[in-house]
C-alpha cells in the first residue's frame, strides 16, 4: 500500500512497518447482510489491540476470519507477510488449499467465549492433545509444557479432572493454556469473559493481563470489558456497522472519543457501570 488511507471518519491508522497481521480491504457478508465493509487494519508484532463495538457490529467476525472460521467475501488477510486465505501463483492470488491454510494458521491461536474445551478429555489432555498431534512433539515434552502452562494460569493442581468439574473461570483459564501451549504468534480472544459469572471475570482477565505484559504474543482482544481494554491494550479500535469508526490509544478513545458513534457507545457503558454500582 502506497499511502496511508484516510476514510470518511477522519480516522488515521498508524503506519506499521512490518505488520504481523494485515487486513486489506476485507469484507464479509452473510447472504445480503454486510457484516464487515472493506476493513483495512495493520497490527504490529507484540501489539495488544482491543476491538470494541456493540453486538452485531462485526467485531467477532473480524477475529473469526483470522482464525479461518469464516471466509472473507473479498479482500486479503496477511499473516506474517503471507496471505492466509490465498496463495500466490505467478504473482496472482488464488484461493489457498488446506495445506497452505494450515501452515499459516499455525501462527494463530484463539480463546472462545464458550471455552470450547474438549469435555471428554482431562485438563492435561486438553492441553497436550494439539502439541502431540499437531506439533508432533513427544508426550513427555508436551506434558512438561502443558503442566508449566497450567501452573501459569493457576491450575497446575487440576491436571486429572474433567472440564465439567471446573468453574467457568477455571475452564476459560484452561482454554487460554491450551491455546498458548501451541506458542502462537497471535492470540485471539473473542469475548472471553462474556459467558462468565461476574465474580469469575477477574481471574481470567488477570491471566490475560499477565500474558499481555510478557509482550511476546500479539493479541487481538474482542471485548466488552472497557476497563480491561483500557488497562492492557496499546490500541483500541471501535467498530460500528462493519466499519472501523475510530481507533487510537486507550486514553484517547476511552476518555476523549472524537466520533459521535464512539461517544454514544461509550456513554452507554458508563451509564451501565453507574447503574451497577
Amino acid at each position, binding site marked *: 500500500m502506497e499511502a496511508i488511507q484516510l476514510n470518511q471518519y477522519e480516522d488515521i491508522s498508524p503506519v506499521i512497518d512490518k505488520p504481523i497481521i494485515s487486513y486489506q480491504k476485507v469484507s464479509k457478508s452473510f447472504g445480503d447482510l454486510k457484516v464487515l465493509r472493506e476493513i483495512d487494519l495493520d497490527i504490529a508484532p507484540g501489539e495488544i489491540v482491543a476491538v470494541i463495538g456493540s453486538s452485531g457490529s462485526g467485531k467477532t467476525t473480524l477475529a473469526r476470519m483470522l*482464525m*479461518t*472460521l469464516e471466509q472473507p467475501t473479498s479482500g486479503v488477510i496477511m499473516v506474517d507477510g503471507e496471505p492466509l486465505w490465498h496463495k500466490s501463483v505467478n504473482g496472482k492470488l488464488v484461493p489457498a488449499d*488446506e495445506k497452505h491454510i*494450515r501452515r499459516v*494458521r*499455525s501462527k*494463530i*491461536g*484463539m480463546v*472462545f467465549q*464458550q471455552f*470450547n*474445551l*474438549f*469435555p*471428554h478429555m482431562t485438563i492435561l489432555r486438553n492441553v497436550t*492433545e*494439539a502439541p502431540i*498431534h*499437531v506439533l508432533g512433539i513427544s508426550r513427555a515434552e508436551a506434558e512438561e509444557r502443558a503442566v508449566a502452562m497450567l501452573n501459569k494460569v493457576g491450575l497446575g493442581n487440576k491436571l486429572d479432572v*474433567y472440564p*465439567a468439574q471446573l468453574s467457568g473461570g477455571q475452564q476459560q483459564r484452561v482454554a487460554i493454556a*491450551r*491455546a498458548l501451549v*501451541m506458542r502462537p504468534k497471535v492470540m485471539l480472544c473473542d469475548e472471553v469473559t462474556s459467558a462468565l459469572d461476574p465474580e469469575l471475570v477477574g481471574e481470567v482477565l488477570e491471566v490475560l493481563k499477565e500474558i499481555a505484559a510478557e509482550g511476546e504474543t500479539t493479541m487481538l482482544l474482542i471485548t466488552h470489558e472497557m476497563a480491561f481494554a483500557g488497562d492492557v491494550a496499546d490500541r483500541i479500535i471501535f467498530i460500528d456497522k462493519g466499519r472501523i469508526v475510530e481507533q487510537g490509544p486507550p486514553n484517547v478513545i476511552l476518555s476523549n472519543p472524537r466520533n459521535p458513534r464512539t461517544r454514544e457507545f461509550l456513554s452507554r457503558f458508563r451509564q451501565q457501570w453507574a447503574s451497577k454500582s
Partner: protein
Amino acid sequence: MWDWEYAFSIMPQLLKALQITISATILGFLLACILGLLLAFARRSNFKPLSLVTGGFVEFVRSTPLLAQLYFIFYVLPQCGIMLSPLSAGVIGLGLHYSTYLSEVYRAGIDAVPRGQWEASTALNFSRTRTWLSVILPQAIPPIIPVMGNYFIGMFKDTPLLSAITLVEVLQAAKIIGSHTFRYIEPITIVGLMFLVLSYVSSVGIRRLEARLNRW
C-alpha cells in the same frame, strides 16, 4: 408334554447352530458399524454427487425388505459371477441392511457435537482426521450406544431370515430337528429361550458399556 431327556439330547445340535447365529450377528454388526460410519461420512461430504448418491442408496436399502436383499445377494449375484457361501451372503446382507440404519444414527450423533468443538479443533490446527479421531467421534458415539445396541439386538433377532438362503442358523436347526422327530415343542421353545437369554445379556452389556463411556 415336555420331555427333558429329549430336550437335553438335542442341545448339542442347537448350540452348534447357535454359534452360526452368533457369528452371523457379530460379523454382520461389525460390518454394519464400519459401513454405516463410511455412509455417514459420504452423506456429509461437500462433494454433492457423492452425498446425493449415498442418500439415495440409504433410502433404497431402507425401503426394501431385508429378505429381498438377501435373495438378491445369494441368488442374483452368482449370475454376475459373484458366488458367496450362505454365511458370507448373510453377513453381507445383514451388514448392508443395518449399515443404512446405523448411518442415520451416526449422523444424529455427529450432528449433536456442538459447533464449538469443530471450531476449537480448527483453532488448534488439528487435521481433519485428527479432529474426527480425537474430538468428534469420541463425543458422537457414546450417546448413540443405546440406539446402536437396539439395532444389534434387532439384527440378532433377524438372523432366522438367513434360513431363506439355506443357512442353518439356530431356528432353522430347531425346525429340522422337529421335522425329523415330529416333536417341535422342545426345540422351538429352547431356541426361543436362547434368544431371550442372549438378548437380555446383550442389553445388560450395552448398558454397562454406556455407563463406562459416559463417565465424563
